[in-house]
């Protein structure tokens, strides 16, 4: 028989970026707040302390900080009539595990979306005509505007301590920043990171080409910094162990380095690690939640009563939990009815690897968000009618690490083993740089998430099933970017280069790592028949359940999601504090 805990005001599901922020915001209101984290507790000391982190095999290859598929995974298929099989070992994407979540092991690319991306459907219809949108495409507006989110982007950047250069301060274009970005009310809290050789080569070439390069907005500190919560970051030492690792140097912005140290001191906050929420419990009328049920660290079931439930698990897990809890109507791709699981989207990436016989890049000197970037081919720059696709991309020349098991680009035609492989390794290591294209991915009627009919997790619950494949619109986008990157690669005059972009035969492949930017499934919007959440990230059907994270995106933006996720979290927190708590109920009338 399940044990019942004393009541708390707010229960937080997951303790990564979004619920660390929610912990601060809800405790500010004097509420009692309990966070339940599925994975282990972890902090800079002792878990990420030098030298333990500098171990590519354990963290980079064997995924020590990531979710174990043995405990919970999902199944994958390409089409609605196909058999789905489990994602048995990690590859294409890497959900984090433990306190800090993906905010612990990310690289730190921290973007705001373009204003147009938040109202993409309306933007396309108004600018290019409704018939520009292909029949099977399911794009929607977010239901919240850039102007509404701007103060929250700004505050998230100050909490996370982002290093960068503004390109648009209150409408005034700034030298050295991104001239195409949405307006900013303030400069970044820290100056850009130092430039590596690949950065300067790319910057100088792009400037000669008449393009507008600028430094990546980085969640890697460029100087000593104290954030609004009193948390301190140290200057990044370019250790070359960033993505897939916890930061050994208090330099990478993470829930641990930016929020949790302050939050843990609050007496009305507590958290429990190794506690996995099984479902949100609903009152008998199904219109309010009474709390959650979870399995504690001893394997016992516990009922946790709460007045307010805030989901802040990884995007895929939020959707899984909604489906398991019976909150919102599951989406059916055949009838088009229902909403939960709808509009799953990913990210369309590609890139070039350039070899320079006589250049020394020292690739092990790098940081997660050390890169020079272009936004000249972004969503807002492209004539979708003429180009024949909807979407956009940013380009980056990044130098994140030179860890040799995984980062050993070899020239075309080099063998994969034997004496000639060894020779190619020696000739190539340290002499390559890359140009990446990081592109949007639209949503489609038949790309969605639901419960798998066959496979179960280690608690016997159905796994979630992902139905996803690449679509021609997005392949046309990435092929457009390929032509541009081919020109830029040639302009850098490498001894050799190779391009890697998806083509019209490409099917989604779960094996090679692509990105952990899985979005949608619990999307926000303006109408309960087409979205799970209203514009304040409140579920339409159960007013005391809010869902944070990139599961709210109706399609994927061209950028990395964390900046938008952070902004949306503060936006939702403001609505809860100012509107919901004084008068609990739906914040938008359906």
């Amino acid at each position, binding site marked *: 028989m399940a044990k019942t805990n004393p009541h708390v005001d707010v229960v937080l599901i997951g303790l990564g970026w979004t619920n660390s922020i929610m912990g601060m915001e809800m405790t500010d209101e004097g509420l009692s707040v309990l966070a339940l984290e599925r994975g282990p507790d972890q902090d800079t000391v002792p878990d990420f302390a030098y030298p333990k982190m500098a171990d590519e095999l354990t963290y980079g290859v064997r995924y020590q900080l990531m979710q174990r598929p043995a405990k919970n995974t999902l199944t994958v298929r390409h089409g609605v009539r196909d058999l789905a099989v489990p994602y048995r*070992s990690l590859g294409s994407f890497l959900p984090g595990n433990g306190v800090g979540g993906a905010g612990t092991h990310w690289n730190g690319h921290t973007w705001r979306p373009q204003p147009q991306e938040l109202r993409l459907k309306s933007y396309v219809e108004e600018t290019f005509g409704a018939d520009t949108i292909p029949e099977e495409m399911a794009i929607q507006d977010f239901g919240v505007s850039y102007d509404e989110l701007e103060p929250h982007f700004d505050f998230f950047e100050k909490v996370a301590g982002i290093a960068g250069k503004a390109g648009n301060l209150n409408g005034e274009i700034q030298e050295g920043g991104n001239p195409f970005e949405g307006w900013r009310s303030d400069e970044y809290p820290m100056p850009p990171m130092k430039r590596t050789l690949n950065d300067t080569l790319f910057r100088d070439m792009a400037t000669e080409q008449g393009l507008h390069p600028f430094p990546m907005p980085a969640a890697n500190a460029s100087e000593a910094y104290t954030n609004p919560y009193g948390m301190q970051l140290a200057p990044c030492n370019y250790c070359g162990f960033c993505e897939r690792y916890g930061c050994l140097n208090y330099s990478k912005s993470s829930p641990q380095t930016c929020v949790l140290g302050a939050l843990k001191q609050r007496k009305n906050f507590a958290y429990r690690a190794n506690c996995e929420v099984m479902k949100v419990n609903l009152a008998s009328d199904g219109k309010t939640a009474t709390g959650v049920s979870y399995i504690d660290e001893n394997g016992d079931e516990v009922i946790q009563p709460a007045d307010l439930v805030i989901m802040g698990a990884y995007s895929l897990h939020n959707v899984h939990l909604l489906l398991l809890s019976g909150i919102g109507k599951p989406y059916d791709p055949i009838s088009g009815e229902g909403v939960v699981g709808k509009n799953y989207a990913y990210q369309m990436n590609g890139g070039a690897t350039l070899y320079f016989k006589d250049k020394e890049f020292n690739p092990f000197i790098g940081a997660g968000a050390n890169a020079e970037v272009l936004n000249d081919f972004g969503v807002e720059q492209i004539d979708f009618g003429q180009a024949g696709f909807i979407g956009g991309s940013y380009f980056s020349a990044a130098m994140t690490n030179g860890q040799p098991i995984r980062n050993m680009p070899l020239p075309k035609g080099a063998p994969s083993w034997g004496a000639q492989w060894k020779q190619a390794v020696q000739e190539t290591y340290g002499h390559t740089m890359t140009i990446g294209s990081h592109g949007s991915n639209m949503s489609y009627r038949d790309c969605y998430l639901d419960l798998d009919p066959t496979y179960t997790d280690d608690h016997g619950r159905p796994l979630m099933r992902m139905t996803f494949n690449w679509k021609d619109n997005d392949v046309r986008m990435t092929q457009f970017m390929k032509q541009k990157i081919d020109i830029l690669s040639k302009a850098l005059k490498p001894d050799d280069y190779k391009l890697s972009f998806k083509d019209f035969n490409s099917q989604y492949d779960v094996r090679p790592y692509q990105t952990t930017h899985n979005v949608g499934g619990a999307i926000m919007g303006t109408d309960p028949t087409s979205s799970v959440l209203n514009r304040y990230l409140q579920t339409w059907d159960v007013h005391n359940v809010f869902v944070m994270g990139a599961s709210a995106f109706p399609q994927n933006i061209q950028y990395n999601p964390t900046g938008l996720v952070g902004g949306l979290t503060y936006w939702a927190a403001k609505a809860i504090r100012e509107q919901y708590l004084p008068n609990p109920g739906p914040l938008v009338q359906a």
Partner: protein
Amino acid sequence: MSSELKNASRRGFIKGSLMMIPAVTVGGGVSLTAAAAEPPANLDDYQPTFFDADEWRFILAACDRLIPSDGEGPGALETNVPIFIDQQMEGKFGHAADWYMKGPFHPGVSPLFGYQSPLAPREVYRKGIAATGRYCQDNHGKGFAALDVDTQTQILTQLEKGEIEFDDVSSGQFFAFLLQNTKEGYFADPIHGGNKHMASWKFIGFPGARASYLEWVEQHNKAYPLGPVSLTGERG
């Protein structure tokens, strides 16, 4: 409705972090403190834990083909790669401990869906080595390790391309694990049993676990001058 919470997290924190430590060490099959005191093993004296004598002869010969000692730079044997592989078989990787291994299995689906075999990697090795041995006996009259170098290379190439097929294990998957683990053992920190004296890092110019380069970031187009260090503090 405000109240002070009894903070269970402190207890959870200590438990949680203690639980992490064995996970890390089991993963690598080694512990930081034990390895620090011990010099790397001598491959000739090493007694494999997982592989039997026949299997070990195959591993030694195959590693020598995949990363031979010819030309510049160390080979897999000088860098203790076989020891690394033996230790991986006994750790989480060999047992597929982190992988979802519940059925039903559909090994016939497109390779795009990743690993779909019910076999843990150590079972793939065991069956793959045995099947390769039978193939060599049937077609060449001796075991793999006794064949000449060119024939060994030819057989590995056929395994890689799936041109030799086995009944009870995928030849391509067997080769893929073997190649992946060989490169891992070559380039991973010596704490995991291979990369003896960081020889592969010295060969390519990777500084290992130094992990501190602030003063070098802006020194462009100059080869980094310092040799590698390992997790246990060995310097090369």
